[in-house]
C-alpha cells in the first residue's frame, strides 16, 4: 500500500502546485511593471459590459486611465485613487467590491462545503475510523464507503478539469476577431459616400486598393471619382478594369458617364455597349433616357 500513499501525495502536491501557480499568475500579472494598469485593472469601465478600465478601449475608459495616471503622478496612492472613483461612480466602479452580506456568503458557502466534505471523507477513510465506528476496515460496508468517496472525488476533479478545459476552449470564441483594415476602409468609404463626401471616399478606396487590389473596389473608386468631379481619374480607373474585363457593365457605365461629362464623342458608343451587355442593370433605364434625349454627347 506504500505506493498508493506516494501516489496520493504526488497528486496532492501536483494539484497544490498548479493551484499556487494559477493564483500567482492571475494575481501577479496586472501591472507589476505598470502601476497605472494595476490601478485601472481594479476599476470597472462604466460604459462597458464586464470590462475593466485597463482593458476597455471606450473613450471614457481611456479618460479614466488618464485620470489614474495623473493622480499617480501627483503622488496619490492607489487606495486614495480608488476612493476618488467610488465617490464619483459608486462602489460598483470597483471590479472587486468589498465582500459584504450575500457576497460574503457566496465565498463562504463553498469553503464550508469543501471543509465539511473533507472532514467527512477523513472520518470515513481514516483506518482508525473503524475502531470508533461500526464496521471493521475491510468489511464490505467500509469498502463500499471508501469506493463511493473515491468515485465521488474523481468525479469532482473530472468535473472541475472539464469545466476548466471547456472554458479555455470557449474563451477565444468570445473575443472579437481583429478588424480587417481593408474592410474598415471600405465601410468608411461607403459611409463617406452616403454623406456625399466623394473626395474623401475616393481616398479611402485608394487606401483599400493599396492593401488589396480588387476590381470591385476599383469600380467603387471610379464611381466615387466621377461623383467627386474628377472625370479623368474616373476614366483611367474604369479603363484599367476594362483592360482586364472588356465587358464589365460597371466599368462601361463609369467610363461612358465620364466621357459624357467631358463631352467626348465616344460616350454614346460606350454607353450603348453598356446597354448591350447589361440590359437589366439598375442604371439601364436612366442611360436609355440619356441616350434618347441627349443624342449629341452631353447636349444639355
Amino acid at each position: 500500500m506504500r505506493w498508493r500513499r506516494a501516489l496520493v501525495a504526488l497528486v496532492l502536491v501536483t494539484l497544490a502546485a498548479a493551484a499556487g501557480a494559477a493564483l500567482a499568475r492571475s494575481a501577479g500579472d496586472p501591472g507589476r511593471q505598470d502601476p497605472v494598469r494595476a490601478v485601472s485593472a481594479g476599476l470597472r469601465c462604466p460604459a462597458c459590459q464586464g470590462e475593466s478600465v485597463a482593458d476597455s478601449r471606450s473613450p471614457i475608459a481611456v479618460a479614466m486611465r488618464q485620470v489614474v495616471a495623473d493622480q499617480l503622478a501627483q503622488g496619490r496612492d492607489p487606495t486614495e485613487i480608488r476612493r476618488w472613483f467610488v465617490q464619483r461612480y459608486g462602489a460598483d466602479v470597483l471590479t472587486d467590491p468589498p465582500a459584504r452580506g450575500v457576497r460574503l456568503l457566496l465565498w463562504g458557502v463553498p469553503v464550508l462545503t469543501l471543509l465539511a466534505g473533507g472532514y467527512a471523507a477523513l472520518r470515513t477513510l481514516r483506518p482508525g475510523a473503524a475502531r470508533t465506528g461500526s464496521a471493521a476496515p475491510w468489511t464490505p460496508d467500509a469498502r463500499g464507503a471508501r469506493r463511493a468517496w473515491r468515485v465521488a472525488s474523481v468525479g469532482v476533479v473530472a468535473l472541475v478539469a472539464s469545466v476548466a478545459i471547456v472554458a479555455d476552449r470557449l474563451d477565444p470564441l468570445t473575443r472579437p476577431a481583429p478588424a480587417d483594415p481593408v474592410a474598415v476602409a471600405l465601410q468608411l468609404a461607403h459611409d463617406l459616400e452616403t454623406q456625399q463626401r466623394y473626395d474623401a471616399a475616393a481616398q479611402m478606396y485608394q487606401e483599400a486598393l493599396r492593401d488589396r487590389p480588387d476590381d470591385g473596389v476599383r469600380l467603387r473608386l471610379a464611381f466615387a471619382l466621377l461623383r467627386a468631379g474628377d472625370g479623368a481619374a474616373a476614366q483611367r480607373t474604369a479603363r484599367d478594369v476594362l483592360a482586364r474585363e472588356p465587358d464589365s457593365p460597371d466599368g462601361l457605365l463609369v467610363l461612358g458617364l465620364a466621357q459624357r461629362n467631358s463631352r467626348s464623342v465616344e460616350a454614346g458608343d460606350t454607353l450603348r455597349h453598356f446597354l448591350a451587355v447589361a440590359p437589366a442593370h439598375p442604371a439601364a433605364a436612366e442611360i436609355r433616357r440619356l441616350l434618347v434625349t441627349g443624342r449629341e454627347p452631353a447636349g444639355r
Partner: protein
Amino acid sequence: MRRRPGWLRVGPATVLTLTVAVGALIAFGLRAPATPDPGEATAVAGRPAPALSGATLDGGRFALSDARGQVVLVNVFASWCGPCRDELPLLVDAERSWSPRGVRLVGLNIRDGADAVRALLDETGATGLTVVPDPDGTRAVEWGVRGVPETFVVGRDGRLVDRRQGVVTRQWLEQRVAPLLAG
C-alpha cells in the same frame, strides 16, 4: 444492527442544511438583478456640482461658479457620437426659449478636435453654444460621466439636481428642468 457513530447520524441533517443553504443562496442570487439598480448608483441630486471652468472653444472663458443663480445644463458630448448630434438642436432650442428664465447650456466636449466640433455646431445650428473642450476626457471623469451623451442639471444653488444618461428628450426637459424655473 449495531449503533452507528454520532457523526453519521448528524450527517444527513448537515447535508440537508447545506443543500438548502446553497439552494437558497442560488435562488437569492438569481432573483437579485445582475447589476445593481442604475438609478441608485447614479443618483446625484443634492451633491455639489464638480468644478467646471476654463477656456471655451471660441476663445472666451467659462466658470460654473460664475453661473450661480442660473440653472445650468451641462451636456457632455462629442462630434464622434451620433446621438449627441441628434439631441443638440433640442438642447439649443430649450436654452433659447428658457434663457429669459435663467437657463444656461454648456457643452463639455470630450476627446474631440476643435475643427470637428465646429463642423458639428454648424451642422446642428448650435454655433452660439458655450463649449468647454475636454481633450483627454479627465474633466468628464471628474463629473462621473459614464458615456456620451450625458446631461447634468445644476440648480441655482450650484448643486446637482438631476442627470440624464443618453439622449435628452423634450419630455424629460419639461419634467425635470421646467419645474426649476419657477420663481
